């Protein structure tokens, strides 16, 4: 968490090398996943992005059917064939708590879903390729409170089986969802700690100010 423009998204997008897509990007340092530096030039970026899935701020389903949105990742990574694709799609949609709402309309266009449903569809799409880590970039910022509550419920479920890295500018959300919390400001990591410690006894003055609402 951190105020706008502090580099939360940039940091998040470094973890699956999405920043590579931006022209004139310069990346220094290292990011280790299971001890391997993913910023090294030997990294297979495609394999990396399969292991590290991402959900964006605004729901961005493909202009395809609900089914095809989920099946896309399964197909391109050849994770399943024929009928098994169907069962995988169902599994992913169930995992994202979306199955009951869409099971009768899988061939409808994904844009016919509500914003909250679209965002859960994007999460299902991400989980269908069975990543180890899921990156979420302010996934609830475009959603209404009800959809946000459902999304958070889902994320609490998912964090039992996945490593989740979530960016948020919503303090309560960070407190509710996370085990560990990092506070960023102006491109700098100010503080990183267990969430309850960071929220109750911040060590840095700036963290304290942010938490008490003096800025942000």
């Amino acid at each position, binding site marked *: 968490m951190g105020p706008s423009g502090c580099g939360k998204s940039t940091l998040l997008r470094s973890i699956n090398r999405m920043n590579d897509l931006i*022209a004139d990007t310069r990346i220094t340092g290292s990011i280790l996943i299971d001890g391997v530096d993913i910023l090294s030039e030997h990294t297979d970026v495609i394999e990396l992005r399969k292991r590290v899935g991402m959900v*964006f701020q605004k729901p*961005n389903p493909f202009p395809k059917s609900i089914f095809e949105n989920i099946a896309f990742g399964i197909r391109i990574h050849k994770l399943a064939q024929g009928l098994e694709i169907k069962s995988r799609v169902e599994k992913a949609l169930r995992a994202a708590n979306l199955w009951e709402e869409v099971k009768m309309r899988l061939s409808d266009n994904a844009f016919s879903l509500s914003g909250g449903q679209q965002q859960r569809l994007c999460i299902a799409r991400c989980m269908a390729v069975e990543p180890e880590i899921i990156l979420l970039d302010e996934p609830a910022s475009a959603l209404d409170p009800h959809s946000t509550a459902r999304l958070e419920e889902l994320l609490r479920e998912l964090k039992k089986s996945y490593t989740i890295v979530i960016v948020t500018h919503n303090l309560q959300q960070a407190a509710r969802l996370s085990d560990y919390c990092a506070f960023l400001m102006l491109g700098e990591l100010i503080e990183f700690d267990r969430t309850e410690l960071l929220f109750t006894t911040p060590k840095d003055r700036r963290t304290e100010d942010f938490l008490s609402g003096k800025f942000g």
Partner: protein
Amino acid sequence: MNIRKGVDRDIRKVFLANAILAATVLVGILVFLLSYGVRAFFPSPLAFTDPSSRPVKVSEFLTGTVWNPDAYGQPSYGIIPLLLGSFITTLIALVIAVPLGVASAVFIAERLKGWQRITAKVIIELFAGFPSVIIGFFGLLVLGPFLARLFNVPSGLNLLTAGVTLALMSLPTIITVSDDALLVVPNSYREAAYALGASPWITATRIILPAARSGILAAVMLGFGRAVGETMAVLMVAGNAPVIPRSLFDPVRTITSTIAIELGETAFNTPHFFSLFALGFILFIIALATNLIAESLFRREKRSFTL
């Protein structure tokens, strides 16, 4: 406030006048073509002095397989060979130019950045503005002889050369319009695909192209229009025998070339003269039909893909 309202009203009038003017010109062209064209099918004022200037029969015009209006005493006015000439050359052009053009557009839109992109666009747009006579020269002196040697046929002035020349001419149109269509595909689709571990190739073919397909269709339609309406270049390389082609290496004559070749050499107000306007009208109908088909395809597209 009143002044603003007045200006608003005046500007509205100016736009309305422009719209009416444009529509009038279009309708005027149509009426002109039609009024001249139909006279080919009625007795001409010269019928008394020249026995060969009998009116053209509509059935003969639409279904006749011989176009030979100059034959003394026995003129024939069948447009089938000309229609086939236009359609087959255009078909060859599109078969070559559509895959090549769309692939180039994908490359330019998805892979090139910054100055490379701008350079590529400038060159292609320059090529789009090339005078067609120059491309005709190229077809006549370079492409024709090359294809003749390649396929070991006596003359390079044939259907194939005409098709390839037309492909060259419609390529820039197809590339630029497809490129524009690809550029308006939201970046979030690309991000979504890349974040799932899709390669650039898969992203382009499975996500971006389908998302841009109505724009790509527009590009194909414009390419079709360019090819079917092209006159000069195709006239220079097609061989211009108004016969039904039996192979890729037979000469053909298109509707447009026929009008260009014959209009200067016919006597005014003869059935031959008027029949050329009828040809023009047919061309107009083809263009109109293509546009309507494209339009209805867009509509269907919109219905199935609204936000």
